[in-house]
């Protein structure tokens, strides 16, 4: 990997502080098959410098990892780098001066020019300073369909959400659960967001997420979204799984017809050696609108007093955003790279679809970046309750939703 070495050497930081070898502890919650393989790419690249990557994976989800990350930062014993959803979530830690300022690296490498969409870098920026490295783009609004399952039911693979709903009774008859859905609340909320874009349209979506327009949340268009969501919940009966990748596995094995999930599900299909277009089909925007929201993951670097560690942290930051690592990482993760200037010819069908949409600029803001974790949590709670309790009416749910949006921050 000579190329890597040159690349690293060319960065301003490395030149500045010919750092001696240190160990960097990196915390993240990427532990599923595809995720772990992707992290390994980071580690591999970093270990090829003189430094060492100490992996601090915490399985579960951000909820398990977050108290650990935050208490260690608060306690003055931080890890050296950590995954956090960027945007609103880490704001307070940055404001408290606990995070390393990466502005010099960002300016030296011209991140502002290479990161696409630039909103991802904005999410890392507070008062003009850059505090995190975006590493990938994730879009939640995808429908994943199992060819096996539709074959069993003797149907063609649908090309959008509405066809999928029409096909559901036949799938049921064939003993296939139409829609796989994990029990965790964020998964139901994700599905809601996807249906909202597909059924309600992008204007409605933007109006609610960006403008937090409670009137829009109470509108008749939104009622349609809730009705569609209410109909969808009837399709998931019998999918009693917890984790998203278990739900994805139902699709992979043909036990379920489809799953509404983010593009990271791609990684699971890949690990299972499935080929897009042959074994499964992916429909961005649920096949209705060719549009995706761009959320993603980012890495933050807690401040330390040790200049050697600070140097190594900056080195890791620049490594994570470098072209080579971006390609290697995102191919494994199934997500899109955050820079438009990389060659992704190795990408599969689904990724290419995503890249094309991204290149066309058909992007939407993501819920995580728009709402505070608190509001997001409230919507999660509402959606999972609504999804699982069919006695809640559409009107009732919509009223509560509008209420949350009215008080959102």
């Amino acid at each position, binding site marked *: 990997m000579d190329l890597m070495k040159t690349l690293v050497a060319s960065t301003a930081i490395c030149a500045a502080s010919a750092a001696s070898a240190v160990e960097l502890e990196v915390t993240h919650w990427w532990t599923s098959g595809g995720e772990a393989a992707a992290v390994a790419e980071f580690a591999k690249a970093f270990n090829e410098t003189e430094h060492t990557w100490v992996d601090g994976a915490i399985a579960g989800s951000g909820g398990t990892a*977050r108290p650990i990350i*935050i208490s260690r930062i608060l306690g003055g014993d931080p890890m050296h780098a950590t995954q956090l959803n960027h945007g609103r979530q880490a704001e307070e830690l940055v404001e408290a001066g606990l995070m390393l300022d990466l502005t010099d690296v960002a300016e030296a490498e011209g991140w502002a020019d290479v990161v696409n969409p630039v909103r991802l870098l904005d999410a890392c920026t507070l008062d003009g300073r850059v505090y995190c490295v975006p590493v990938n783009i994730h879009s939640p609004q995808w429908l994943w369909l199992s060819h096996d399952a539709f074959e069993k039911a003797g149907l063609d693979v649908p090309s959008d959400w509405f066809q999928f709903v029409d096909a559901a009774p036949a799938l049921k008859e064939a003993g296939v659960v139409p829609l796989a859905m994990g029990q965790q609340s964020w998964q139901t909320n994700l599905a809601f967001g996807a249906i909202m874009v597909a059924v309600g349209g992008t204007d409605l979506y933007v109006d609610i997420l960006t403008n937090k327009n409670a009137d829009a949340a109470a509108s008749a268009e939104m009622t349609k979204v809730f009705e569609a969501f209410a109909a969808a919940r009837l399709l998931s009966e019998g999918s*009693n799984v917890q984790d998203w990748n278990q739900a994805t596995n139902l699709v992979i094995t043909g036990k379920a017809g489809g799953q509404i999930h983010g593009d990271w599900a791609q990684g699971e299909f890949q690990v299972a050696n499935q080929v897009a277009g042959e074994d499964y089909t992916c429909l961005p925007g649920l096949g209705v609108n060719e549009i995706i929201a761009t959320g993603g993951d980012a890495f933050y670097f807690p401040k330390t007093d040790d200049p050697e560690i600070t140097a190594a942290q900056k080195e890791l930051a620049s490594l994570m955003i470098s072209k080579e690592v971006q390609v290697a990482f995102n191919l494994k993760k199934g997500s899109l790279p955050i820079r438009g200037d990389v060659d992704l010819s190795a990408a599969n069908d689904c990724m290419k679809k995503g890249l094309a949409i991204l290149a066309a600029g058909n992007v939407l803001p993501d819920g995580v970046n728009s709402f*505070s*974790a608190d509001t997001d949590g409230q919507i999660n*709670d509402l959606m999972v*309750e609504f999804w699982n*309790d069919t006695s809640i009416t559409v009107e009732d749910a919509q009223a509560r939703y509008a209420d949350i949006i009215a008080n959102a921050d």
Partner: protein
Amino acid sequence: MAVTDAGPATEVAKRPSRLFKNLASKIAAVPMVLVALVIFVGCTIWTIYHSFTRSRLLPAPEKWVGLDNYERLWGENRWLISIENLAIYGFCSLTLSLTIGFVLAALLDRKIRFENTIRTIILYPFALSFVVTGLAWQWILNPQLGLQNVVRSWGWESFAFDPLNNAEIVIFGILIAGIWQGSGFVMVLLLAGMRGIDEDIWKASRVEGIPAWKTYIFIVIPMMRPVFVTAIVIIASGIIKVYDLVVAQTSGGPGIASEVPAKYVIEKMFFSQNLGLGFAASTMMLLSVLVVLIPWAYLEFGGKKNG
């Protein structure tokens, strides 16, 4: 308290400072006093104070918002369901643990054979964590792979036992696992208490011809009050804190049907990053504990101070 200067005393000893009397014992009590004051009282006050603030990801003592967090808390469906679940779980868990523990203890007390083996079998789940307990029972109660499937494969096709995916009874699915884990310890406590009861009581009741079950209910149980108190403290403190079990078994689902307050607190604090709301919820939990505990503590410790 002055020293009385009396009689033909050759000397009058000055009372040494009370502070240094038995100094070693006072030093030894320092950890307890520190834990009680700094951790339990101090942190509780800290928590209560911050429940009135708009603390989000980090504690923000300067952002005072009054009762806002409490208003929101009691307006949330999920909190109400959590409270209701805790009440159901708490009541059932307490009564069932005590009943099962007592019945088992009474059976083992009948001088049976294999007592040691049976006792070990009943007690061993206590060695396992709630996470393990939750996983094992999630697995057994899994409708596709577990009990339901097995009974159906024996030919009882209509058999339905799927508590973890039925919002109406999911809390009882958790209860099954909770009882499994904790009742053995209750049994051991009560058995120990039973063994401590004077043999003569049994002789007396035999002479008077009182049936065994009546002796247990009317004579043995009242005599075992201290043991029951210990057992109740241990069970109840576990009930309030029930979290891992729910997370491992159902993650609060289906929907929000098996949510509990401790889980609400933790998720509001760490998932939703709304520390203020989480603190408000934990203050409410604390308040309910106080309402139950204060009368008990008064009866238990206030009455026999000089006894």
